[in-house]
């Protein structure tokens, strides 16, 4: 009972904080402390959001497609790289530093290059999403594979399991929690990655729409897109969390027991 109450407080607290921030924002705008052309009032943003909603949805379809394709390819890519690096120590030694290094390259800097190489269609956007999302997943998988207990591998050997069996019976399930930890980060990167790529050239998508309304100085619409992007990113993370729950039923049971 007490626990339930605590849970509710946890959920109410961030909502209250959000309400306070929006309240201040409203006060600052309506009191004309900041001019309306610089910061649109939450009311205007809300109106823009509602009016533009159908348009936002059409653009979101494109962006979501890019993000999801990118994320899926990123997962596949991460899985292959991590498996190979786990299997061959020299690949791990050779590529781990390079992987880390690859993440220091600013996304915004390579996006225009990708557009030049691949054109204005979906390809450069998906590629950018792959580049931004595969890293956290790869690291998650690698850490997961490395966390396997040596005695468990020996146990498998004592049962005459081959490498492949040890891999899918022990290593993959053991790596799942850290894989999902990485995937959650990647999911939040995916939408943003696609949007950034769209800024630099394209015909449709939330990023394209964003540059358009920016050029029109329609700040209320701009804010509406930003909020919309936040919402779909959150939904994507929630989706990952849901899949995670379904993929690891043993954790759910254990938690129930502890509670």
């Amino acid at each position: 009972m007490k626990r339930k109450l605590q849970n509710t407080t946890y959920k109410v607290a961030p909502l209250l904080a959000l309400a306070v921030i929006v309240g201040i924002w409203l006060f600052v705008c309506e009191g004309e402390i900041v001019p309306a052309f610089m910061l649109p009032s939450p009311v205007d943003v809300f109106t823009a959001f509602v009016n533009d909603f159908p348009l936002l949805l059409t653009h979101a379809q494109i962006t979501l497609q890019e993000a999801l394709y990118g994320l899926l390819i990123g997962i596949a890519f991460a899985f292959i790289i991590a498996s190979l690096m786990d299997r061959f120590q020299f690949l791990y030694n050779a590529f781990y530093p390079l992987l880390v290094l690859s993440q220091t390259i600013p996304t915004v800097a390579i996006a225009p290059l990708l557009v030049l190489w691949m054109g204005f269609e979906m390809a450069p956007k998906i590629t950018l999403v792959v580049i931004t999302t595969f890293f956290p997943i790869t690291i998650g998988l690698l850490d997961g594979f490395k966390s396997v207990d040596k005695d468990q591998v020996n146990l498998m050997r004592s049962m005459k399991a081959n490498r492949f069996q040890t891999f899918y019976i022990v290593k993959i399930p053991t790596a799942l929690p850290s894989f999902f930890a990485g995937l959650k980060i990647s999911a939040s990167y995916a939408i943003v990655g696609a949007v950034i790529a769209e800024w630099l050239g394209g015909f449709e998508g939330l990023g394209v729409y964003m540059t358009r309304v920016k050029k029109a100085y329609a700040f209320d619409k701009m804010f509406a897109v930003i909020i919309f992007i936040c919402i779909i990113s959150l939904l994507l993370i929630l989706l990952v969390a849901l899949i995670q729950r379904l993929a690891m039923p043993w954790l759910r049971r254990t938690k129930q027991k502890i509670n």
Partner: protein
Amino acid sequence: MSFLEVKNVTKSFDNKTIIKDVNLHLEKGEIVSLLGISGSGKTTLFNAISGISTPDSGKIILDGKDITGKPGSISYMLQKDMLFPFRKIVDNVALPLTVSGVSKKEARKKASALFEEFGLEGTQMQYPDELSGGMRQRAALLRTYLASKGVALLDEPFSALDTITKSSMHKWYLDIMEKIKLSTLFITHDIDEAILLSDRIYILSGVPGNITDEIVIDEKKPRSNDFALTEKFLEYKKLVVEKIAFT
């Protein structure tokens, strides 16, 4: 010829000899304890017998076949139960069958048939974290049994349990062994446990580790925990303590 023979096994790490010229044998259906103080090379010997590591010299012979350095013939169980948290108990127990290519359904059926005998009835679909330490060790022993081709190595299987659970596990273990007749090499540092459970006790001591003594526990089976309260048990205990102190 014995069922399992360990002949002149020597193993070193980093130029340090851990065990030297270890000889022992195990008959069919026998429970033999290997009693050793810490640092006597129990685990090294254990890995060599199970085939996880290859000894520098010497041979492991099971049922007339040389299995030195070849894992897969001798199953083992550790102090850690090593049940995979992500597999249901029945799938954990059936793992050796699954690995050898039996279908999931068939493996579950075969494993499930033994649950009652091992006192595990009803836990099939639970996850390991939902079970107590004693129950988990039961499941681990059942897995070891299903993995075995006649010989099991148990490395301090009950030493992580609390005294009361341990005592009830001893009773359970004596009962179950009467039924399944699994030839067992039982590694322990607990003298009482060794006397209570075994037909024979080897004492492993010295640096490098070697078998320094062999004691036959001549007490009929099935035994009960009450054996530990008899005069005879104390005599054995005195004998073992003396032999360990002497070396």
